[in-house]
């Protein structure tokens, strides 16, 4: 159960309910907000993220598209240029590769190449991540593909409060936002759902747990593992870990990361995406540059191995993906260094 900060009226919801209700609220308030994607309309989405929206807002605002991701994003870009605030749902993040050209070469560069005359306020919702025995085509982490693309924003919130606050921020952001939704979090993570106008700033990390002995920087499901591990380590070993939830990957909140490591002297970056070329490398480089004189241990990264895909066999998938045990072991080792 996650609590919402600075909000008084709350209900408890899971992540999928949060996404649906946030989209509903925004569509009800502002008719420029539309949703498009595969099976998002009558069917209500494969994960029920848009259940009831078609009935409430009709086929013109909740649009079932062909199975063509490039087209989904392309239509969203066109609609945005025409004055709407489109939310494009890619059924699984694994399918976004078909739309890479639209996202990187069109949406991300719109403001720059038009010298500020045009901008592209789209949200691309990407259900990503493993742990659901989805195999090769339904488990990928795709954030690193977009991480080196200036012009995009990337958010990856995983508590109801963060999801609502950042989804609203993404919808109202004047530029394209990649909205990463961890599929395993959809029904697993529950927390307080802030009513009303709760909005968070894109580009701000959230210190989910304050501590003094080491800093764990993470996002997505591994952030939850780090939080659980931190409580266990505090109870069993007296190790007091600080857990920084990035929430936004781009822009990266370097200030919060550096401030935390200056306090603790030790950094572990954890993500489900594979190690090489991942977000963790950028976090590590930032700390090495800006907090060198505060480091008391080598910077550590914990990530999935560099293998081509998430295996389909549940046992192999389990072996490949990080668990709370893995995160706790890495935290303990670093704390004892």
């Amino acid at each position, binding site marked *: 159960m996650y609590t919402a900060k600075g909000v008084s009226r709350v209900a408890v919801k899971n992540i999928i309910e949060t996404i649906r209700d946030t989209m509903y609220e925004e569509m009800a308030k502002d008719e420029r907000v539309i949703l498009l994607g595969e099976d998002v309309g009558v069917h209500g989405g494969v994960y029920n993220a848009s259940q009831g929206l078609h009935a409430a807002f009709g086929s013109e605002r909740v649009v079932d598209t062909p199975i063509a991701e490039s087209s989904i994003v392309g239509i969203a870009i066109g609609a945005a240029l025409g004055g709407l605030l489109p939310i494009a749902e890619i059924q699984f993040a694994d399918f976004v590769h078909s739309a890479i050209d639209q996202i990187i070469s069109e949406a991300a560069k719109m403001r720059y190449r038009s010298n500020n005359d045009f901008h592209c306020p789209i949200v691309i919702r990407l259900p990503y991540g493993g742990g659901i025995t989805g195999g090769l085509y339904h488990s990928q982490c795709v954030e690193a593909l977009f991480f080196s693309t200036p012009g995009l924003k990337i958010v990856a919130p995983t508590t109801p409060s963060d999801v609502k606050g950042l989804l609203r921020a993404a919808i109202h952001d004047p530029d394209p936002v990649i909205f990463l939704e961890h599929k395993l979090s959809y029904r697993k993570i529950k927390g307080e759902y802030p009513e009303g106008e709760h909005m968070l700033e894109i580009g701000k990390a959230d210190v989910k747990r304050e501590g003094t*002995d080491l800093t764990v920087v993470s996002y997505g499901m591994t952030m939850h593992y780090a939080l659980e591990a931190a409580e266990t380590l505090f109870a069993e070993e007296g190790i007091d870990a600080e857990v920084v939830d990035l929430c936004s990957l781009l822009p990266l909140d370097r200030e919060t990361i550096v401030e935390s490591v200056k306090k603790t*002297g030790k950094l572990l970056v954890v993500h489900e995406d594979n190690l090489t070329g991942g977000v963790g490398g950028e976090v590590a480089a930032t700390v090495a540059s800006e907090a*060198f*004189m*505060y*480091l*008391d*241990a080598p910077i550590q990264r914990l990530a999935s191995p560099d293998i081509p895909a998430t295996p389909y066999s549940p046992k192999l998938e389990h072996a490949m993906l990080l668990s709370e045990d893995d995160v706790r072991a890495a935290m303990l080792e670093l704390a*004892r*260094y």
Partner: protein
Amino acid sequence: MPKEIAMPKLGESVVEGVIGRWLKAEGDRIEEDEPLVEIDTDKVNAEVPSPYSGVVYKLVASEGETVPVGGIIAMIQVDGEEETAPAADEAGKGDEPNAAPEVASPFGVGISAEVERPYSAREPHLYSPAVRRLAQESGIDPSDVQGTGAGGRVTKKDMERAIEARRTRQAPAEDFLGSAPFRGRPESIGRTAEGDEVIPITRMRRTIAERLLHSTRTVPHAWTTVEVDVTSLVKFRESIKEEFRRREGINLTYLPFVVKAAVEALREYPILNSTWEEDRIVIKKHIHIGIAVDLDDGLIVPVIRDADQRSIVGLARSISDLATRARSGALTPDDVSGGTFTINNTGAFGSVLSAPIINYPQAAILSMETITRRPVVVGDAIGIRSMMNLCMSLDHRVLDGAVCGRFLKSVKTRLEAYDSNTPLY
């Protein structure tokens, strides 16, 4: 070719020694086994004999110099071997195959025919950027800080603790004086007024200071005390002490009785005979009891080995022997190492209550206080009884109050049972 004499290893954990006094000068004649030099270590002072007969060719180390174990301290021109003029060496003529000097240990076979290379004390320390920054900001040398990280590494937290410890030690005085914010040592330190006496810190004083400071800094001490009615023991000792002295040639004190009772209780509660080793607790199989002996200029804790294997007379003899040799400076390194539990006879100077500092890395220390005749409730009456307090400090990381209470009760029960039926042998 003169033979080189290396700093001997005067104990298992000893890594360096200080040249106390040369007993021979360059050019002096010396016989095999004749004392060459006095070496001070943080454990003992020892005379080191020459392994050769010959002439002292060169004293390489000077008095007061600290030399790592294995380091060259002197050279001896051995009888019957070809003399080498110092000038020849200086001229760089030593290019024959056997030019490398042979190094001999004064302890001969078994200790080190080959040179033991100095280690640890001379190894360069690697510190993290955070530790170096804190060292620079605080002026605290990380090599003075006890490391708790992997492999004994000094961590950022260790430095922060050292800084905090210094701040809490010195801040109150500064506040009281109302002076500027603390920036290192109080200003009054380093100045003397007329008539003040300045005593240089001896190596022993320094060692005592470092050991006790380390113990109080790192070991969470807790204290507990029991009262023991030793009336029957006092009567017993009074009745036999003259005869004992005649027969054994030594005084029978209360200490061997307390040691006897304590080692039997240690066998009953072995967790008290243990050490805290950060990631584990080690219960020691052998019971080696350290006995604090006060000297004119300090304190030393020689060790009764396997104290649980000895009778009361055996313990009395060991104690007498160790105390005598401690006061004449004749203890060997082995006499002062390996203790697993320490007993301190603070009663010898009239103390009735004390909070001893644990002899790190042991887990506990016991003080026997002076025996006083006091009115005590005995049954429903008041009687005059000989009472002794036993005070114990415990490492609360290893031990809790309950087990220490049971241990002390066991010691107490044993001591209270000593009487004329107690076998001395």
